[in-house]
């Protein structure tokens, strides 16, 4: 297990470093002078030169990368070119609302998708199976930001149950905060819930056809114990990997959903960065997001190894 862990960890670090190199050098293809963005167009040539010197833009590109990486490791991503403050400050402010939404969306996906998949898988062709198929079809045709718009229309405009857009902090007023969180949470989590439901359904159907399940039935175990002890435990192990892989897509989907619901967070920050071509901001945010993604995947692999001894031996 130790060597498996180390190997997996090393792979993850290599991926993050390569991703940071990729983002850093691709971002440098953006035309225009960031110093100009920072001081404004009416600045004198000396002022611009001064800013270039201060930001280290006159150094060779490779040197700039290492300077940036050295800062990034310590949580310093340099100044934003358009927002007039440090990138790390901007991200710190955006982190809470985004993390709140991502966690809530993910919990919704797990709590809705996995039971739906189990019900569908235990009785193919039953009402649960139809519900799961219908839900999957719905999410195939309705992407997350469109689902957000539909939810606003039905739950906020037509029924008036929930506030349309915005956010209240959980620390300020927990009940209000949840009201604002419900719709974005569903919009962010629905796609993942459908993927999980479909996967769990297939996994359960496959497991219940295995020889050891037939053996368990043949030796006269009660159906409940066959399903729970022999079927479910084996069927749900591979779900760990699928569930973890979905986190990255959930986070990238949250970027758009945040904008639909006018929630502060990584989404509006990142899109502002793309529109303003603020590469310092974009590269900082992307490296953080990729790191989160890689860490989650690594943890999932480790958890999978813990849950299924066959994996870590190979």
């Amino acid at each position: 297990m130790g060597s498996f862990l180390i190997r997996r960890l090393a792979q993850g670090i290599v991926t993050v470093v390569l991703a940071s190199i990729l983002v850093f050098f691709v971002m440098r293809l953006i035309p225009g002078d960031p110093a100009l963005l920072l001081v404004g167009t009416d600045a004198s040539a000396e002022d611009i030169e001064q800013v270039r010197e201060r930001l280290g833009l006159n150094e060779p590109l490779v040197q700039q990368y290492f300077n940036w990486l050295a800062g990034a490791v310590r949580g310093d991503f340099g100044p934003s070119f358009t927002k007039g403050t440090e990138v790390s400050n901007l991200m710190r402010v955006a982190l809470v609302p985004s993390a709140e939404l991502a966690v809530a969306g993910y919990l919704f996906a797990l709590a809705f998708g996995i039971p739906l998949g189990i019900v569908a898988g235990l009785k193919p062709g039953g009402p649960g199976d139809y519900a799961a198929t219908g839900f999957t079809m719905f999410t195939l045709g309705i992407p997350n930001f469109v689902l957000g718009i539909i939810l606003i229309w039905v739950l906020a405009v037509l029924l008036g149950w929930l506030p349309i857009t915005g956010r209240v902090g959980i620390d300020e007023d927990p009940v209000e905060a949840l009201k604002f969180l419900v719709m974005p949470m569903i919009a962010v989590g629905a796609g993942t819930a459908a993927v999980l439901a479909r996967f769990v359904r297939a996994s359960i159907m496959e497991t219940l056809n295995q020889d050891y399940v037939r053996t368990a039935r043949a030796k006269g175990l009660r159906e409940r114990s066959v399903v729970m002890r022999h079927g479910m435990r084996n069927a749900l192990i591979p779900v760990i990997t699928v569930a973890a892989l979905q986190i990255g897509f959930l986070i990238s989907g949250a970027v758009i959903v945040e904008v639909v619901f006018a929630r502060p967070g990584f989404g509006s920050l990142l899109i502002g960065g793309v529109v303003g071509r603020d590469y310092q901001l974009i590269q900082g945010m992307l490296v953080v997001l990729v790191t989160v993604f890689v860490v989650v995947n690594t943890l999932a692999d480790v958890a999978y190894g813990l849950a299924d001894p066959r994996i870590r031996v190979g």
Partner: protein
Amino acid sequence: MANTPGQVGVFRSASLRARVLELRQQSQWFDVAYRVARERRGQIALVILGVFLVCALFAGQIAPYGYDEQLRGAKLLSPSWSHPFGTDEISRDLLSRIIFGIRVSLFVGAGSIAIGMPIGVAIGYTAGYFGNWTDAVAMRLIDTMLAFPGILTALVVLAVLGTGTREVAITLGIGAVPVFARLARGQMLQEKERDYVMAARTLGAGPVRIIMRHVSINTLPPLMIQAALYMAFAVIAEASLSFLGLGASRPTATIGLILNAARPFLTLGAWWFILTPIAALALMLIALNFLADAILEATSPYVRNK
């Protein structure tokens, strides 16, 4: 074969049946298309995509009005005979705008495949066939690109290229490269151990001939399925990006821009403004997913001869 081709009563004339059979035996493309057209999901997909394709190609002739034509006294009208989908906030016919929007969606979808699939497949085949360091280098690059999930790759590239429909197509094309590369590599690793590759090599075929003439034909179905699924992703991504203001700019008609314009009018009860672009998008996405399902059904050896 339970279902001998030719016995099927789709075609009345015997000579036509014979001709179809002959074509199916000659061309794998034709055979897959024929089987897809016999699946129910395939039929639904082909009809919807066919209609949308005609809309996209002949948008200028089919649309009753121009995509940016402002009509006198037709602000926010609900659906009627003269405007089946209603009109928008600045008196434009929504049916016409959606028809032009479908053109943008399909252009971006097809364009991203046209850019990303050949490059990705070429990288994947090469890495899989030659193995060793070629494979190691290619796979590191692919894994690094895949570390940017979903639409994040698109955001990075759009920051460099700037916004616009063509830029979005290129961006999503770049995003398609690692997806196809990884799939093609896996296929190649499987196929290159097969006897027919050995036979071709024994007969003196070089790598290019083996890849182009032998392996590529046998790995076609999974790549086609991936193409349909990636196209669905590209259509969603285009709608998202233009909704966010990172794709085409006003007054161009795209599904994303129409949705963005419609959002503030939800509270005013303009349901047609929001529902019609959603319906067009949903039909397109479901058709592409059905197409992927139908290709799988039509080419999977387990279900093929049922």
